[in-house]
């Protein structure tokens, strides 16, 4: 195994040297993912290629271990250092374990950023989050409001009452409610991320609030259970189920009409943005420091906070028009 890997990395280094000789000034950006063969990351690689084509004279090295281990990623990173790539953009399997290898990369002048799943601040120049609490809170209300021109009652179906991320999103959603006149949040209930309890809570919402227009579930279990409950109650078209879900899981709900639209980060955009940022930093067009604003091409720009972390954008909205394209990706 390790002999094979050594041979492979030697070949890779030789190939890299040939490549360097061929295009001396070409920018090489390595996109290191948690593991190869995962739809989400394959999509991110697609976005990276798109960014490379747009930036020009840029080569993407899409790589990662075959299983989601930190050791595997360290080997990959060491190989990339040997190849002398210009930038490494990594979605880490472990926030701390990769730090020494990535530090070594930065010592050799390689630009290192993390995206999706972050690395501890010591091991990267900046981290790109797919989205932020505020953006998600706003998006989930907007998803419901977009299909309620006359306003009306909406309810939130969350995971557990103590789930930190869900609660933060719900707080953010409540904060933006005044921006959506006519939208009336009547209840927040908790399905504990169990399909049977979520289903029952969704039934309870429909029974308690006969005029309910939308159920917002910022959890993948909850949104599916609510969709099934609305379908079984024969209320498709009357109650719109929305929130955060995965296209591969939500395809049936969108097809049946129980869900008009839902959101989750777009892996293509994420790969595109990570590549664009890595290129900007490596070419010296931008510097990763607190408060800095770095361009992400067609997506806009990201502003870094005091831990050099930034949020890409609103979660991406999926509906009948694009679900077919994404359901096989992740």
């Amino acid at each position: 195994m390790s002999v094979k890997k050594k041979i492979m990395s030697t070949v890779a280094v030789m190939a890299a040297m040939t490549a360097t000789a061929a295009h001396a000034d070409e920018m090489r950006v390595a996109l290191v993912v948690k593991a190869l063969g995962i739809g989400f990351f394959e999509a991110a690689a697609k976005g990276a290629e798109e960014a490379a084509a747009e930036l020009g004279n840029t080569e993407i090295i899409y790589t990662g271990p075959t299983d989601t281990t930190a050791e595997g990623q360290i080997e990959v990173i060491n190989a990339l250092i040997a190849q002398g790539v210009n930038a490494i953009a990594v979605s880490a399997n472990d926030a701390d374990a990769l730090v020494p290898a990535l530090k070594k990369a930065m010592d050799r002048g390689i630009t290192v950023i993390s995206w999706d799943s972050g690395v501890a601040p010591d091991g990267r120049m900046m981290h790109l989050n797919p989205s932020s609490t505020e953006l998600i809170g706003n998006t989930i209300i907007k998803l419901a409001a977009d299909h309620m021109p006359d306003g009306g009652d909406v309810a939130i179906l969350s995971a557990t009452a103590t789930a930190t991320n869900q609660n933060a999103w719900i707080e953010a959603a409540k904060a933006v409610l005044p921006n959506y006149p006519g939208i009336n949040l009547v209840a927040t209930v908790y399905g504990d991320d169990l399909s049977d309890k979520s289903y029952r809570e969704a039934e309870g919402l429909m029974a308690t609030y006969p005029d309910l227009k939308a159920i917002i579930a910022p959890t993948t279990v909850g949104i599916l259970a609510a969709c099934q409950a609305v379908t079984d109650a024969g209320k498709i078209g009357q109650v719109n189920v929305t929130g955060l879900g995965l296209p591969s899981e939500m395809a049936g709900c969108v097809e049946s009409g129980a869900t008009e639209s839902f959101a989750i980060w777009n892996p293509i955009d994420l790969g595109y943005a990570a590549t664009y940022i890595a290129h900007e930093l490596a070419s010296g067009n931008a510097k990763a420091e607190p408060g800095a604003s770095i361009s992400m091409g067609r997506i806009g720009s990201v502003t870094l906070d005091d831990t050099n972390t930034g949020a890409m954008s609103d979660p991406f909205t999926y509906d009948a028009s694009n679900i077919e394209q994404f359901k096989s990706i992740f």
Partner: protein
Amino acid sequence: MMKRLATSREAILFGAILVLLALIATRFPAFVAPSNLAGVFNDTSPLILLALGQMVVILTKCIDLSVAANLALTGMVVAMINVAAPGVPVPVIVTVAVLLGTLMGAFNGLLVWLLSIPPIVVTLGTMTIYRGIIFLLSEGKWVNAHEMSPAFKAFPRTQFLGLPVLSWVAIVAVIAFYVLMTRTTLGRAIYAVGGNPHAAVYTGINVGRTQFWAYTISGALAGLTGYLWVSRYAVAYVDIAGGFELTVVAACVIGGISIVGGVGTVIGALLGALFLGVINNALPVIDISPFWQMAISGAAIIVAIAFNAQASKTKGRVILKSAEHAA
């Protein structure tokens, strides 16, 4: 006779359910509408099925903590069969589910019977093993509604004489178990094994083998429920029915099935499950904080166990009247 009926465990529990319904009706009248009550019964059907199996196991002084994991594994397997071969008819799917569940139940039973490992340890172990196998089979992926065939999803929902098939399955199971427990040798042996294992041995009953059959029955019901569950909620993943085994045990305890074995009835298990079913369905509509919901479910269990403890306090029988007077 009337007095015995009125003070029986089942009558008290039935009364408690009626009081509960009346209380809920004061806050949310639509809850007691017949159509809604039918919905509550339908929603409670999986719990009733599992509680019947658990009852049989508890009666033999054992416990089956692997029911929910068995349910989840069977559910995942039949869902994956459905995805791989959408043409497989539902009766075949149901048969596979029952057989697979039976197999897993029998495995528990064999360990308890032949290796004499304490039941709680056996089923704690198999619970984890079964959940682990789901992960290995599915690689952590979900089987979703749009991947399942329409027939696969339609079966528990099909209306028959005004009730969904899911409800009918529970009704048939309750009747079958009533006959099994009161009219068959196996049923009586189960009571005997739990009531007094030593006496049971002297009457020629094999204690271990009876416990094996109890686990097998419980497994078969868990398998059947596995298909019904996955079909009803139209999703299969590693964690479905997570922690449900404790709800099942709670239903049995509330239903007056003694945790030390030998005491309990089919009607008790049914009412215990319905009691929890009513609470679970009512809490979302009467607008109570989720933190209180857990406390209420917990309190119901404690009250039920306190009742059990009172009822099972044997007064002690005076067998030598003269000796008592002499003392």
